[in-house]
Every structure is written in structure tokens, then in C-alpha cells.
């Protein structure tokens, strides 16, 4: 033990040096807090990547780098609760239709420029999902957009573990009609069958354990099935379901399946027809991860109304907006603004649809999603009204570290131009 002590000390020291997050003091900004309203001309002290205080005239505790944000708006880093960037373009395992053993965390590409483009729109956290080709797709992963760092460093392990399910056109047509299922009946049946198999599997193990208990020579155990073990996680409440759907009847059916088997649907994705079952969604406390008004790009997306969000809001269904990979990831704040128009939301409430609401949907609201002391200092800084298309993101900060700085971006471009000129000379 004595021999080990120095090693332990070194390890502790390393851990201390390697504390996540950085220190930063933001001066004179306009802070959009949900609990204290808009704080104009306040300072924010960030220590070790966490918000330490938001107050006027904070005294620098010593050598913390400062940044003047006079005239700028600071909002919680935007959270995109449904996106597929940084997955090397491979998001659908179409060779089979039930593939929960797939894990998106295993194929994060930290070099995808889309990570940076996301940052330019103030996004700090995204939920990366398996595609929608399979009734039961893969396990999703939540990441922070730590551009320049490893895939490992990007993964947000405090987020709820999620599993992707998909209904409707995509799983119906993924194989061009060559394999089961090609109907919504088939999709529902596939999901039921898979969860029933998982229950059977569990029963097999339980029986074996009972038989093996206290016996010197245990009988051979059942074979492990990684696929069904993921479904058991879902049935045991250790993992929640996020389900792609457009039409209301298929979603109602999944809600029935969830009741039968006892699992939690955390959120419905896209769900253009959610307004048709606002009461039912509110009762089951199922969240929505949707577009503000993009629609009609395929048959099942052609029945929709953005004014439906007013109804959903009235019934108490929580709305999160997402980009689903398109360039909309660079303007989630504008999409949030549209909730004022469509759903009669107050501006702060609208801002929540891209910050606190998706944080809750991902189970990370204890750590991110609002400007509260103790939470991670994940911030987006805009040069004007954060809900307006006429203002732009100038600074994106994750855990106190600046990952996007517009001025820096422009400077590096002009340096590059000078270098190019000199090279051609």
C-alpha cells in the first residue's frame, strides 16, 4: 500500500489539473435567465466550466480572463434534440429491421465540419440519433460540440440513455418493399414481437438463475443476446424511447404498445400531426422534438399546421425544436422565435424551446439549458435579439471554453488570404 501511495497522489494531482471546463469572466452582458428575467449589464463568473455567479460588478477572483459583452445578449447554449451530424453519414443499419444493439456513440466523427457550423448558430449540445429506416433502430448519443476534441470528450454521459424507434413511411419503404415490414401494421407488429422476445429472453435467464441457485454444477446458461438486452434496458426503465413518427394513429398505437410492455416514450420526433392528439400526449407526458414549420416534403408530412403548437402548448405538451441535420441547425433561435407567432408564446417561453425544453427531453436539465448558478457554462452570445433572424451568433461557449468566436473566425480567414497571396507571389 505504501508503495502505491505516490502513484495515488500523482493520479489525484492529474485529476485536479484535468478538471473539466475553464474560467471566464463575462462583463456587462444582457443575460437571458428564466428565473430572474433579462439581466442587463450584468457580469457572469465562470469557474471550472460552471456558472459561479451572475451579478453586477463581479470582482475578478484573480487572473480569470475577461470578455466585454456590452451590447450582446447571452442565452443558454442552444440544444438540438434531434440531429445526425458527425456520424460519418452512416445513420441507418438497414440490413435488419430490429437493431437496438447499434450504438451511435461508436461512430462519432469529431472532424465533421457540421460540428463547427452548428456552433456558428449557437448550438452547444446535440442528440445524435440513429436513422429512421428501422422500426427499432439503434441507441442514440448526446454530445457537446467540443470542436477539436476527441469523440470521447464530446459524449455527454449525464444524458438519459435513449433508443430510436421509427414508424410510418421510412421503416415501410427502407428496403423498397423487399422485406418485412412494408405496412404500418407490420411496423407495429415488429415492435411488439421484439419486446415480447425480450421478455421471453428475460424469463429464460430468470429460470436458469433459479435452477442454478445453490447447485454445484449449474446447467448451461442461455445464450446472451445483446440485441434483446438493450430492449430489456428499455423495459426496465434504464433507457427511454425516442420515436420518429408523422401520423397520429401510428403514434397512438405506439403509446398502446408502451403501456402493454411498460416502457417510457420520452419524445416523439417530427410528429407533424401531434396537434391531433394533444390531450393524449399531455396525459402521457410525452415530449415533442419537432420543426417549427418545415413540412410537406413527403406524403406523411403533408398534414400539418404550425398553429397546432398553440393547442399543444395550451394542453401542456412540452415542445422542443430540432434541425434534423439540415442547415436549420444554424438558425434554431429563429425557429424558436416563430413560436411567438404560431403558439402565442411569450418570448422567454419561445427561447425555452431550443434550450431548457430540449435539456429536459434529454434529461440534462440539471446541468444545462438555463443560466443558473451551478450549471455548466454552455452559452450562446448574439449581437442582438436572440430570437431575431437579423442578429447573429458571435460567440459559443461550452463549459467556459470558447469554441466559436466570429471575430477569430474572420481574423483567421484574412490571415489565410494574405498567406495565399504571398504564396502565389
Amino acid at each position: 500500500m505504501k508503495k502505491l501511495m505516490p502513484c495515488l497522489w500523482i493520479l489525484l494531482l492529474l485529476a485536479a489539473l484535468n478538471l473539466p471546463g475553464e474560467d471566464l469572466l463575462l462583463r456587462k452582458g444582457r443575460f437571458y435567465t428564466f428565473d430572474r428575467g433579462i439581466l442587463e449589464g450584468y457580469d457572469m463568473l465562470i469557474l471550472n466550466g460552471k456558472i459561479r455567479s451572475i451579478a453586477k460588478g463581479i470582482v475578478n477572483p484573480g487572473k480569470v480572463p475577461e470578455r466585454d459583452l456590452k451590447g450582446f445578449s447571452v442565452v443558454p447554449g442552444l440544444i438540438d434534440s434531434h440531429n445526425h451530424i458527425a456520424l460519418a453519414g452512416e445513420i441507418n443499419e438497414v440490413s435488419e429491421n430490429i437493431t437496438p444493439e447499434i450504438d451511435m456513440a461508436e461512430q462519432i466523427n469529431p472532424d465533421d465540419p457540421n460540428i463547427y457550423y452548428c456552433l456558428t448558430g449557437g448550438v452547444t449540445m446535440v442528440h445524435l440519433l440513429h436513422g429512421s429506416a428501422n422500426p427499432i433502430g439503434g441507441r442514440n448519443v448526446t454530445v457537446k460540440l467540443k470542436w477539436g476534441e476527441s469523440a470521447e470528450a464530446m459524449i455527454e454521459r449525464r444524458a438519459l440513455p435513449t433508443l430510436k424507434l421509427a414508424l410510418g413511411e421510412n421503416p415501410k419503404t427502407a428496403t423498397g418493399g423487399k422485406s418485412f415490414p412494408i405496412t404500418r401494421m407490420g411496423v407495429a407488429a415488429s415492435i411488439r414481437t421484439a419486446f415480447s422476445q425480450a421478455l421471453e429472453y428475460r424469463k429464460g435467464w430468470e429460470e436458469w438463475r433459479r435452477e442454478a441457485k445453490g447447485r454445484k454444477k449449474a446447467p448451461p446458461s442461455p445464450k446472451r443476446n445483446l440485441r434483446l438486452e438493450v430492449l430489456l434496458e428499455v423495459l426496465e426503465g434504464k433507457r427511454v424511447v425516442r420515436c420518429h413518427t408523422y401520423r397520429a394513429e401510428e403514434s397512438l398505437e405506439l403509446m398502446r404498445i408502451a403501456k402493454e410492455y411498460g416502457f417510457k416514450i420520452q419524445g416523439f420526433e417530427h410528429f407533424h400531426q401531434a396537434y391531433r392528439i394533444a390531450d393524449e400526449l399531455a396525459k402521457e407526458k410525452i415530449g415533442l422534438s419537432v420543426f417549427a414549420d418545415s413540412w410537406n416534403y413527403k406524403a406523411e408530412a403533408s398534414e400539418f399546421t404550425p398553429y397546432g403548437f398553440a393547442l399543444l402548448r395550451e394542453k401542456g405538451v412540452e415542445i422542443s425544436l430540432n434541425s434534423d441535420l439540415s442547415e436549420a441547425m444554424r438558425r434554431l433561435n429563429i425557429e424558436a422565435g416563430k413560436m411567438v407567432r404560431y403558439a402565442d408564446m411569450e418570448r422567454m417561453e419561445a427561447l425555452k424551446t431550443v434550450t431548457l425544453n430540449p435539456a429536459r427531453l434529454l434529461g440534462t436539465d440539471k446541468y444545462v439549458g438555463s443560466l443558473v448558478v451551478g450549471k455548466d457554462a454552455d452559452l450562446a452570445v448574439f449581437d442582438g435579439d436572440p430570437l431575431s433572424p437579423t442578429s447573429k451568433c458571435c460567440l459559443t461557449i461550452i463549459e467556459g471554453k470558447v469554441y466559436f468566436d466570429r471575430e477569430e473566425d474572420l481574423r483567421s480567414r484574412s490571415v489565410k488570404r494574405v498567406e495565399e497571396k504571398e504564396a502565389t507571389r
Partner: protein
Amino acid sequence: MKRTALFLSLFLILFPLFSAERFALKAKRVVTVSGAPMEGGVLLINKGRIERVLSYQDPLPEGYPLVEFKEGTVYPGLINLYSSLGITGVGWGSVWNDSKEVGNLNPQLSTFSAFYPWSNLLPIVRSFGTLTVLVAPNGGAVSGRASLMKTSGWNPDEMVLERDAALIVQLIDKRPAREKETMAPAPSKRTKEVREFLQASRVYSLRACAGEKQAYSPLYEATRFLWEKKRPVIFAANTVEEIREAIKISQEFAIPGVLLGAYEGEKLLPEIRLSGLPVILSSLYEGNHKWEEGYDMVYRLPGLLEKSEIPFAFSFYSSANAFDFPVQAGRAVAYGLSREGAVKALTMTPARIMGLKDRGSIDVGSWADLIVLDGDLLEGTTKVLAVFCEGKRIQGMDYFQREAERASRRESGE
């Protein structure tokens, strides 16, 4: 005879009163676009046109019932010069898509011939403020003729402003990126084709006008309007080479060319300015930029065009999401365009590019194509309070409104 005259004169006197053709539109703010915005304005509207523009202080003349928006801002109706409204419907499927024909030279196509005014999409786009669209085909090299349409009216004939408003020519290299890299730069084949076509079309028109005998050609017959009515050719051109070719072709044939897209326009600002060609920008949501260009390439171009005094208009091709037309323009304001410049590029400049003098701005004599908003046009938070097409207020609900209303009652069926 006497009786007829009496009835006629009575009718003429009473008609304006019965038809409510005359009214006064009063609002907190009037953005005329052609002049400075007015704080507190009254527009006198008569027979669909703006008769007079008054301030709050001016006395209101008799016989003009007041329509007042205490918190409203009036803008001219928006004009979108590259639209698939009426020729595209649901999604990617060909069943609903009439914008893209097979074949390379298709001037005989007219979007008017396929314009579907009963689409759910049309009233939605209208109730968000777009009142005039240039409906454009987008296939091949010579895609076809674009029709200038109003978004109000019952059938295509009521809605058309100009059937043959422009010819759409695609100079954009649509080959997949992989091919572009491995093969020599070859938009030349396409431009050669376009040049030959225009040359033959011009000769055909000259001969036809001179009454000379010649073999009938449906292709050249369809493009006589270019030469005989001096209508514009809209060149879809994105790269430096494509833009240069569009300018060259316009000059060679002395046609009023218009650039569409002009993605790399910032590298050619002086040349574009010198050419006098106006620019129709593609939706700012369509940026597929390269890393070297900087993440804001698409957003900064409108501001640069404004500074170079190049006339430009915004556009939005997708029919389903075209209600976002003004909001996407707001992105350009974030990256250097003036607010006034953005509004102008949604209204007056597109009108003038198409030669419309009485739309796109609020002036005496202009059509009363007007929208009333509860805030700034460029903001996504803004709601539309009222829409007037040629002085007529749009009354019915659009699909979005109807659908929400139906869901709130939880009643199926209409």
C-alpha cells in the same frame, strides 16, 4: 333608350358605394419602400389602386369607409421571382412535381399551362404576404418560360399577370461533385447549346417579323416574346465561370439578362455591376458552402451586392415553405445588409426587374397589393393581420388555420 341611360347613370353613381371599392386603410406605420416609411399613414384605395397617401393629420375625405389597424404596419405585398408555387405539391414524388421536364431544350414549356391554383400551399403563402410570384421551371438547359402570377384569384386566367414573363436558362453545372473534380471544366457544352439556341431563336423571330417564309418551329416560336417584347432571360448561374458566361451571353444577344443564384457573386462584384444585370438570390437556406468560403458565404452576399449598388431580389423556390420568404431575408441583415435593403429586395426590386411599375411599392397609382403586420416584416415573431390583393381583403382561412381550428374542436371532416 332614356330608361337605359337613367339606369346606367344610376348604376355608375351607386356602384362604388355598393361594392365598397373605396376605403381608407389607416395604420400605425406605412412602409412605402419607394420613399421613407411614414409614422401614421392613411391610404385611400379606389378600384383596387392606391388613390392617395395621407398622413394622420390630413382630414379623411367622405365616402371612404375606414379600415384601421392601430398596431399595424403596412408593407407592399411581397414578390418572389423564383418560385415553384402552383407547379409543385407534396414532397419529392413526381406525381406532384410539374417543375422539371425531361430533355434539355424546352422553351415550349410554360408554367402557366400547369399552374394549379387550388393547391393548399397557395393560400398559405399568400396569407404570409407573398402576392406575386414568378413561377419558374427548373429542368434542362433551357427550362421553359416562367409566368408571372398573382397569388389571389380563382383560376389561372384570373391570376396571370404575364404568361410569358421570362425564359429560364440553367447554366449551373449539375453534374455530381465527383465528376466535376475528375473531368475538365465543361460547362462550355451547355453554354454552347444555349448560344446556338438563342441565335436560331433570334433569326427565327427576325424572319417571322419580316414576314419571310420559314419552317415552323415550336421551340423558336415559343421564344419570339424574348425578342419582340424584350422580355428577360433568367440565367441560373452560381460559379464565377457561369456568371461570366451569363453576362457575356446577355451582351452578345443584347437581351435583358438576370442572374439567378450568383452564389460566387462576391468574387465578381465589379463585373456584375458593370454588366447592369440584376440578381435574383436563391433562398439563403440553401447554402451548401465549402469550408474555405467561410460559414457565412450565403448570408453575406446580399450585403455585398447592396454595397456594390447591384440591384437584387430575394427568392424562395420551395412551394411548401415559401412562407419563410421574408424571414430568410432577415439572415442577410445579420451579416451586413441594411433592413431597408432587405425589404426592398422582397418588394420593389423584384417588381422592377420584371418591369412591374405599379406593384412592389406604395405609391399613388399602384395596385393596392398590401399586407398589414403586427411588427417588422423580417422577424419570425411577426404575425400577419390582413392581406389585400388589388384592394380586396382576403377573407377565408388557409389550410393551416383551418386545420388548427378543426383540431381544437376535435372534429373530423371539414
